């Protein structure tokens, strides 16, 4: 909502400091988004006194003037305005001055005559309104006085952020009410020039069936959509430019000035938060103003030049033949007020907020009017808005009211009555406020506090402009707000410990993140969208982009895209991991299955470059991946074991579930890139048991290396199992210390060197015992696997 500081000042009858206003509005719940000083460019424009006017020798429409701008030398100015008169004062822009429209004046000849500046119209100064002639200054200020000093034009446009529950702040009056409460001063509507003598009769209420006002039939068929409607007929108006005060206020509040009629309706909307509409009576067939639901085949040519398809869920204003406006959203082009319009039908309605919201959502058409109606205007003050609008029209466009306005309102109601318990206020706010203070706070925002009944409750009537106040808690919030959030204590009071414990999955995610960062990986967060992977990908109904139409099934594709982006930035060394949620479809109509995963990718040099190993070109390989995968399993899923599946490793739980996979990844790689390795693993969130301590050995160990010729068909894991079975209980560790392929072992065979470490927990082993164990191992692997001993 854009506010004019001067308009607010007119309500409060006092000057306002914008910084102070901003501070107060923020603390009242309407933070200021921005403050824009208006007419700041006018400082260089001065009051000019025209001393002489002569005809231009070479042009009929132009005149030569001599302007006293307060300096010693009067300026020669060529002027085209019809109203320039000697002895009068006008705004004068000297050579070098830039005007709000972007023109910078220079000294030049116009049709052969020197012109040293410009006398200005209101429009040229960005003051809106009349471009027909110079802005006559009826002021005492001496020539040369800066215009903003001579004329109180300077204003500030204050943009506030209004929350959806506060429709009243969408009008200057509502904001003025809040400020008045904050400053502790009264406020009232600004006076409108020329309205003192007007006598507007009160509206005539009509409760059912069609009626008539000023020769126009009025009917409301869609009562739920339009519970209250004011209509007035004004005849004999003269459509024209708005007076300066009206145009200035609208422009300052961010709206264009169009003509005196449209401006009057917009003024009321910006002042009282009541959108209004003016129809050209001559364009209404019947003449009839009929609020009804649209028919399925109807269309309307709206003010924005579009043809809109209507439907029976849309409330429209129609004449005898067809819709002339979409209720509460936008009027029709045919019935709008035109320059030659003389007779008007004015509509001031309450439209049901949810219906307006549905209509404008369906039509993707949000307007100033629909924005206000869908938040709820004041059902009870519509008559005041109509009266205000009529005053402005009669004062600025002339004409006469044709009969009192009609108020079609079937069932007059009163605003909500709410009961407030002071004890409940204390329970929610944590402070005891005296009843008098509660009453003071509520009265300040327009509530009526009716009585103090015996049952420790206060009866409160909420004002019509606050449709958000419907229950006790709403009043408690108002009390807190007006009393001041900052006026309440800020205390860390004792609390009871909760019944829930820290989420296991978060504990697991922490452990994994810290564990992987500790081994040198770098965490990243990627967007959880991507293309479909398979039929279990979860589809987004209304995605932002086609390549982000699905939720991720896995983390690795996202990480791989980041690897490619790094390559694009000439970065060869990438070590990324991510912990995040992945989604799998769980079947029609079912919520998707969600699971927390961890994934990592590595590519590039195995260690940072250093001058001491300048030639080292070693890059991450599958054995680094396997180590990372094992480390991640220990962190994320300790009950799982690594298994080989084709060219990849899988992590398999004791009950046979595959919970992770590690392998080389295919990527769109530049020629210089190293292979990319990656793994992905599900997080197991079952709590960990503490590790059991293993006693430190007190006896010496004995090691033996066994060089074996192992057939290629025998994997090391099988060899290790056979060795483990045969070596007896003193075998402590078993390590692969070398692998060899080549002529010394022949084809179909590889050399594997195992290091066996033996230890007895309670004594030193004798060599004969170890020798016997080794002999048993050699025999066993030979018998079971066809493995031969090479040399020890």
């Amino acid at each position: 909502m854009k506010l004019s500081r001067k308009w607010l000042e007119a309500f409060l009858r006092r000057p306002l400091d914008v910084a102070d206003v901003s501070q107060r509005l923020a603390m009242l719940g309407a933070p200021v988004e921005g403050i824009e000083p208006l007419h700041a460019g006018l400082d260089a424009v001065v009051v000019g006194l025209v001393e002489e006017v002569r005809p231009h020798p070479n042009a009929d429409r132009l005149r030569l003037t001599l302007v006293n701008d307060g300096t010693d030398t009067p300026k020669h100015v060529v002027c085209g305005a019809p109203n320039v008169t000697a002895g009068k004062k006008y705004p004068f822009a000297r050579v070098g001055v830039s005007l709000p429209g972007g023109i910078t004046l220079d000294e030049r000849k116009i049709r052969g005559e020197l012109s040293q500046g410009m006398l200005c119209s209101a429009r040229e100064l960005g003051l809106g309104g009349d471009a027909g002639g110079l802005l006559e200054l009826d002021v005492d200020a001496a020539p040369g006085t800066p215009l903003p000093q001579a004329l109180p034009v300077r204003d500030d446009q204050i943009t506030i952020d209004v929350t959806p529950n506060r429709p009243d702040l969408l009008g200057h009056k509502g904001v003025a009410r809040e400020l008045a409460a904050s400053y502790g001063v009264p406020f009232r509507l600004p006076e409108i020039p020329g309205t003192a003598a007007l006598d507007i009769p009160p509206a005539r209420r009509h409760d059912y069936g069609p009626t008539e006002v000023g020769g126009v039939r009025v009917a409301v068929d869609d009562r739920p959509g339009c519970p209250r409607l004011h209509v007035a007929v004004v005849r004999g108006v003269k459509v024209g430019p708005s007076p300066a005060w009206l145009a200035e206020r609208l422009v300052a509040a961010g709206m264009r000035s169009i003509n005196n009629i449209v401006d009057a309706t917009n003024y009321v909307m910006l002042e009282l938060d009541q959108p209004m509409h003016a129809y050209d009576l001559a364009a209404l067939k019947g003449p009839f103003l009929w609020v009804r639901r649209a028919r399925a085949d109807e269309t309307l040519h709206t003010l924005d030049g579009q043809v809109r398809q209507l439907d029976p869920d849309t409330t429209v204003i129609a004449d005898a033949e067809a819709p002339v406006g979409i209720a509460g959203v936008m009027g029709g082009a045919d019935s709008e007020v035109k320059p030659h319009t003389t007779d008007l039908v004015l509509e001031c309605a309450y439209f049901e907020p949810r219906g307006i919201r549905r209509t404008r959502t369906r039509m993707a058409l949000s307007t100033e009017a629909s924005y206000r109606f869908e938040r709820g205007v004041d059902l009870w003050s519509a008559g005041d808005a109509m009266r205000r609008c009529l005053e402005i029209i009669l004062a600025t466009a002339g004409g006469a009211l044709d009969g009192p306005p009609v108020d079609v309102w079937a069932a007059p109601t009163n605003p909500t009555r709410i009961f407030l318990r002071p004890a409940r206020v204390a329970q929610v706010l944590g402070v005891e406020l005296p009843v008098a203070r509660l009453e003071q706070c509520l009265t300040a925002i327009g509530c009526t506090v009716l009585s103090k009944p015996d049952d420790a409750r206060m009866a409160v009537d909420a004002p019509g402009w606050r449709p958000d106040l419907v229950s006790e808690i709403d009043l408690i919030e108002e009390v807190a707000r007006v009393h001041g959030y900052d006026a309440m204590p800020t205390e860390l009071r004792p609390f009871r410990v909760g019944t829930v414990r820290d989420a296991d999955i978060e504990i697991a995610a922490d452990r994994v993140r810290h564990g992987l960062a500790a081994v040198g990986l770098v965490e990243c967060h990627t967007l959880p969208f991507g293309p479909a992977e398979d039929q279990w990908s979860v589809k987004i109904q209304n995605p932002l982009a086609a390549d982000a139409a699905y939720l991720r099934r896995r983390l690795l594709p996202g990480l791989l895209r980041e690897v490619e982006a790094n390559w694009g930035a000439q970065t060869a060394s990438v070590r990324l991991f991510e912990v995040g949620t992945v989604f799998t479809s769980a079947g029609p109509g079912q919520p998707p299955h969600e699971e927390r995963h961890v994934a990592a990718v590595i590519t590039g040099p195995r260690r940072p470059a250093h001058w001491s190993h300048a030639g080292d070109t070693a890059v991450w390989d599958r054995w680094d991946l396997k180590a990372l995968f094992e480390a991640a399993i220990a962190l994320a899923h300790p009950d799982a074991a690594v298994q080989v599946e084709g060219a990849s490793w899988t992590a398999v739980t004791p009950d046979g579930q595959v919970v992770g996979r590690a392998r080389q990844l295919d990527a769109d790689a530049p020629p210089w890139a190293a292979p990319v390795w990656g793994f992905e693993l599900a997080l197991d969130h079952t709590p960990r048991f503490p590790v059991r301590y293993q006693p430190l050995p007190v006896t010496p160990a004995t090691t033996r290396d066994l060089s074996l010729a192992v057939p290629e068909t025998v994997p090391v894991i099988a060899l290790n199992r056979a060795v483990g079975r045969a070596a007896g209980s003193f075998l402590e560790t078993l390590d692969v210390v070398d692998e060899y392929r080549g002529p010394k072992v022949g084809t179909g065979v590889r050399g594997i060197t195992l290091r066996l470490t033996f230890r007895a927990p309670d004594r030193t082993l004798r060599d004969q015992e170890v020798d016997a164990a080794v002999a048993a191992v050699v025999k066993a692997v030979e018998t079971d696997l066809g493995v031969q001993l090479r040399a020890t």
Partner: protein
Amino acid sequence: MTEHPTLAALVPRLARIPQLDATALAAEDNAVLGRKAGVLTVLLRDLRELPPDDRRRIGAAANELKARFEAAIAERRVQLAREVRAKAEAQVDLTMPARRRFTGALHPVTQVVEEITGIFRELGFVRAVGPEAESEWYNFRALNFPADHPAMDQHDTLYLDTGDRRTSEFDRRRGRSSGLFPAHERRQSPTDRRRPQDGRMLLRTHTSPVQIRLMKEAKPPLRAIMPGVVYRKDPFDPSHAPAFLQIEGLAVDEGISFVDLKGTLAHFARRFFSPTTKVRFRPSYFPFTEPSAEMDVECQLCGGAGCPACKQTGWMEILGCGMVHEQVLKACDLDPERYTGFAFGMGPQRIALQRHGIPDIRLLYSGDMRFLTQFSL
């Protein structure tokens, strides 16, 4: 001792040891103390041939001399080694770069989340989580969002296509393996069948539905902090992302009031920023809290003087909060006359952007190593 000629001859040699170079020292060591032919070794070995009196006297003197030789030689050796090292070190350029290892890093946003949740854990809050794919009931209705209400405008929602129309195709493929962990996903097929009133499936637009789940599943007192990813149909631009992190908080018990809300959150702000940071609470609006507030802290860049980052206000909006709305408590079967509570929500990414001076939120979704390694711990 000097009576023995051999010993007497050795004394001056002992005095010369500090002047010997490495080669001469080794030779002298061997000549005097060598295991086979060292002068003292031989002398001591031959002692048993002397008469007992001489043996004792000369033996004692020889042993003493031996100890002194050993000490002098050892000392000279250390000295020589030190000289060698000093000579070598004089040639080393210590300004050459170190041999570094790769170091890991946690994402800057993770660091902020950990810090925030850590502070709340000090205050008795535990972490809680909920699904990211939610129903309309949990995301909106239980949180008191009226249907067709402008409050929905701030929650531009991504809806899920749960494939109701593809029933037959899905059933046909159901048994077949697919994806990364086919066996695993069968184990975890969901058991919570949706209720008809739950409405459409969507991606949660805030972490607040976790409040609902928590209040429905556990009884007060409840104190929880709920970090998680939330989704909005926002374009990916310098200040928006379609998926971002939020941290929700909830405290529900008998006797919890607005004073507790202010006290707890102001304490958090002072712990997170600095003990002297100024805090203010402004009225605001959320459908699921009332009274609702925004907490601002003094702008950390200008210290409250006003700068472009805080739009000249001197304040930075840190979190939204409020007393849990009565309707929300009722939706969770809690009696609002007995239980009250407060809730809050904040965006750790915005805090991370501001804390590190990162100009574009999209960087937080980048895997660029040059970016991420700037935040190593």
